[in-house]
């Protein structure tokens, strides 16, 4: 979480300094939920369809930080080699598919990865997770994928971070049911709801959902309630978020809550936390510096080939 | 009695045929409307064929176990006219044609597509989808050369002039590649030889010149004075040199007629450099003498004779090639009386002179015909730059100058 928050703050400031190619999307406020799911999953064993505000989860899952800095800073060595950017990155063959912008579209991809493993006889003990927000839950893709995953009884955990806003759209313009977790009933799957600002609660609920799925309990929908503590992207000042919401318990910063919880429970001391922050800052700085020194993609050196099949690649 | 067929129905998307599984009726049976009379099987399912109306089975035309295409007449029913009308079925062999008007129902709900008052519209004739495939503007006609045609002509080194003999069979009379190939095949059956480079050079030059609207005018010129004067000189200058000198002087007085048109710009003569047409083997060369307006006959003569000789040897010096503003040609030396010479493509004017001939010419003074040696002086000009009047003035001035040869 610390790493994620540190990295993203750095990215935000780089954006404001004009160093970033394209947009920056960060997830302050969501780190608790994201890190919870990321830490329940094992790299190159489980599957994690991370989305926009999952830096916490990505880090916990095992995505190298250089992937983030290289993607954002436009290095040729990034996972997409400049062909895609910001959070559209992943390691598909190691369980981290690379998202596309259309929200809800990645759930069926994760479902398909699980589906394939079942046919291949290597689904035992595997869980696939997909992140969505309140906005994505309105899409047809979301609906089709949830239903299909339920029909196919796949070990899929959908982490729905309801951060109260889809860009500028508040939840009363997004859905009419009591809580998004009620949709689980409609799909015939298990639903869980948790206070997303509370790290310990999130860890408990998310790991239960993951275990249930791993143990054959079918798809799980985890709805975590929190508040987005940034704009939709760094180009957005989120002035539409009402003060009352910001000042409510929903608006608590999960980082602060987590620190308090971990200190109170005796898991960490203040100096240890400070040390973590310092280490994170150094790690971020190194990753940023390295990425900045690397070359940008060269249009004359890119092969501009879109096909994987060698016989087609030759012709194009 | 009217007949109604039992048809193999369209039993699903892309089904082309079905197999008869069972005939549930035999000839002579009475049936009612919508009765399942024949069981058929397709690739997808087993279904029943039903009757359109009640009647008697007159004939069954199919066998069990055999496949028939969609639309096949499987059997025939004999139906009464009342039954046919009741069910609205089209029966063949009715004894009287029944009235089949559609009475528009005033109370009927509004149709989705508006129809005019008073009933069903006459259906519009459906036209096939080739409308609009007319020949694009100007891609036809004798002058049109398609890209393929031009490419083929380039390959063969042909120009439009070369294919003028071909009658086009294409749209509007255009010459198609097929026409060209046939023509060339035809021509190749005749013996032929390679044209010399000189010949090709003249051909190209004349072809390019001809793209302009050229006109010729002429007048006779009395040569007595000129011939007498010439005889008095030693050595005797050739006749052409007087023409050359007169032309230079006349043009210097009237330079507009030697202007050269490009687009909307007229380029006036830079200097009165005039060329002389020299017949050489298989072609013509035109060496150019410079600033003819400023040099006398005597000053011009040596160079003139030298250049003509060199031209015949094909050794015209660099400084005498090109850059002229007009040309002189003496075809009289060949015995020709008159002609319509073609100017060089880079020039607006060419002056030609025919052979001198003794003719009877009316003399007003003497009141009778007197013998006069005359030659026809011809001027061909680019009519975009010069008109008949200007040409006439030039020729008349030339005549004046030639009557006083000692001043040239």
């Amino acid at each position, binding site marked *: 979480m610390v790493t994620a928050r540190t990295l993203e703050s750095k990215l935000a400031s780089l954006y404001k300094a004009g160093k970033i190619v394209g947009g920056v999307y960060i997830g302050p406020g969501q780190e608790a939920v994201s890190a919870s799911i990321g830490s329940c999953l094992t790299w190159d064993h489980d599957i994690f369809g991370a989305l926009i505000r999952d830096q916490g989860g990505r880090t916990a899952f095992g995505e190298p930080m250089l992937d983030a800095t290289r993607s954002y800073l436009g290095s040729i060595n990034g996972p997409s080699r400049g062909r895609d950017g910001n959070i559209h990155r992943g390691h598909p063959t190691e369980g981290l598919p690379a998202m596309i912008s259309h929200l809800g579209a990645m759930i069926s991809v994760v479902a398909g990865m699980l589906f394939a493993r079942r046919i291949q006889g290597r689904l035992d003990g595997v869980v696939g997770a997909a992140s969505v927000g309140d906005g994505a839950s309105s899409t047809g893709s979301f609906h089709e994928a949830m239903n299909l995953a339920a029909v196919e009884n796949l070990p899929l955990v959908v982490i729905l971070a309801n951060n109260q806003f889809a860009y500028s759209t508040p939840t009363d313009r997004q859905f009419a049911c009591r809580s998004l977790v009620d949709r689980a009933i409609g799909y015939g799957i298990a639903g869980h709801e948790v206070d997303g600002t509370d790290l310990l609660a999130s860890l408990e609920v998310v790991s239960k959902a993951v275990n249930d799925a791993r143990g054959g309990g079918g798809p799980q929908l985890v709805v975590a309630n929190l508040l987005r503590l940034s704009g939709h992207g760094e180009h957005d000042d989120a002035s539409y978020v009402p003060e009352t919401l910001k000042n409510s318990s929903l608006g608590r910063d999960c980082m602060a809550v987590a620190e308090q919880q971990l200190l109170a429970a005796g898991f960490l001391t203040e100096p240890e936390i400070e040390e973590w922050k310092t280490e994170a800052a150094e790690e971020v700085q190194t990753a940023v510096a390295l990425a900045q020194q690397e070359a940008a993609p060269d249009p004359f050196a890119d092969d501009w080939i879109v096909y994987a099949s060698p016989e087609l690649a030759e012709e194009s | 009695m009217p007949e109604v067929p039992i048809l193999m129905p369209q039993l699903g998307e892309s089904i082309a045929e079905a197999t008869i599984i069972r005939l549930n009726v035999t000839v002579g049976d009475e049936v009612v409307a919508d009765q399942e009379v024949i069981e058929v099987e397709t690739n997808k399912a087993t279904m029943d064929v039903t009757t359109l109306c009640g009647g008697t089975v007159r004939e069954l035309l199919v066998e069990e176990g055999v496949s028939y295409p969609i639309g096949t007449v499987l059997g025939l029913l004999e139906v009464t006219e009342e039954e046919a009308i009741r069910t609205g079925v089209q029966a063949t062999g009715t004894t009287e044609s029944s009235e089949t008007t559609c009475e528009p129902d005033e109370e009927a709900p509004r149709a989705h597509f508006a129809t005019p008052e008073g009933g069903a519209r006459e259906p519009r004739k459906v036209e*096939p989808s080739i409308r609009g495939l007319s020949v694009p503007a100007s891609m036809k006609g004798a002058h049109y050369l398609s890209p393929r045609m031009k490419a083929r002509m380039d390959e063969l080194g042909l120009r439009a002039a070369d294919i003028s003999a071909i009658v086009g069979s294409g749209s509007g009379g255009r010459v198609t590649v097929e026409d060209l190939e046939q023509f060339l095949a035809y021509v190749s059956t005749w013996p032929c030889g390679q044209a010399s480079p000189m010949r090709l050079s003249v051909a190209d030059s004349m072809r390019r010149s001809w793209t302009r609207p050229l006109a010729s005018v002429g007048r006779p010129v009395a040569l007595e004075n000129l011939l007498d004067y010439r005889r008095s000189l030693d050595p005797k200058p050739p006749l052409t040199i007087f023409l050359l000198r007169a032309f230079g002087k006349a043009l210097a007085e009237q330079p507009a007629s030697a202007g050269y048109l490009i687009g909307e710009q007229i380029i006036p003569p830079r200097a009165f450099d005039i060329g002389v047409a020299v017949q050489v083997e298989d072609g013509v060369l035109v060496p150019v003498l410079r600033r003819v307006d400023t040099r006398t006959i005597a000053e011009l003569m040596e160079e003139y004779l030298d250049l003509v000789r060199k031209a015949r040897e094909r050794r015209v010096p660099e400084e005498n090639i090109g850059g002229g503003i007009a040309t002189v040609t003496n075809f009289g030396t060949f015995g020709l009386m008159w002609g319509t010479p073609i100017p060089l493509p880079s020039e607006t004017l060419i002056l030609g002179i025919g052979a001198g001939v003794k003719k009877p010419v009316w003399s007003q003074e003497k009141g009778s015909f007197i013998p006069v040696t005359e030659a026809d002086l011809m001027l061909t000009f680019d009519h975009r730059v010069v008109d008949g009047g200007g040409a006439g003035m030039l020729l008349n001035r030339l005549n004046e100058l030639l009557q006083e040869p000692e001043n040239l």
Partner: protein
Amino acid sequence: MGEVTYIDAIREAQHDLLAADDRVFIYGQDVGHFGGAFKATRGLKDLFPERVIDSPISEDAMIGLAVGAAIEGMRPIIEMQFADFSSVGFNQIVNQAGTHFYRTGVPAPITIRLPSGGTPGSGPFHSQMMESVYAYYPGLVVVTPATVADAYSMLIDAVALDDPVLFCEHKFLYRWLKSDRLKDDDERLPIGQARIVRAGKHASVVAYSAMVHEALRAAELLAEEGWEIEVVDLRSVKPLDTDTVIASVARTGRLLAVGEAFPWGGVTAEIVSRVTNDGFHLLDAPPQRLNSRDTPVPYHPNLWEAHRPTLESISAAIRNLLQL
């Protein structure tokens, strides 16, 4: 041996694919024991129970599932019940599948079968030809087999390719088109190559899918009038075999591109554009296109017949081209 239909060939190809390669599975509505709406998978679930699976009506999720499965090394065949319904999964096809290799370096070898084209009475939503729409997007392969042998071999090749393939099978040809042979190994061509199905010298008619047969009929009609019309079967729309088309126009000098497709842009426009661009000097007449009308496909057979190119309209277009 009996006659083999176009749909038999598709079924046989899927059978052979399932039998030879554990990575292949078929996912689509009604493909299981029902055998598919057109019976393209009849009997296959009995033979391969784990790999022929009925899906819910969720074209978006079906394609997403296919991409996910492909990432994990499978070779999915997704049967769309009608090409027309693939538009529900359009995003997943063009943005997920089509961009995957380009963006991540990981191939997405999925094959999507699209029952395409009109039959009498099929109406606006069971008749569409989608090849132009998908060819537009980079990263996709679009094939349009017109013969029984191609229906077999091109489906095998499609699944073998490492890229997403839209396999546009024509519904009218399913049972109407028959051959005495399933495979024609002597004449087998790879995806990406067109075939000259009728040699000629007066004009080139370039067509694909069911229109190849209409074009051949038109060519035969014109042969009676003394014209030798060359017919080219594109076989795959993307990649489009420009070389073969241009070589044909080099022989004939005249081009008519025919498609059972809406007229704006699309395959016929692409053909004319390429020939004009690369082979302008070969054209003795302006290149022509013939498509369906710019309206949704009508339902009534009378209207339907006047909507798409037919023997009559193709012949008329060729005759017009010949006298230009």
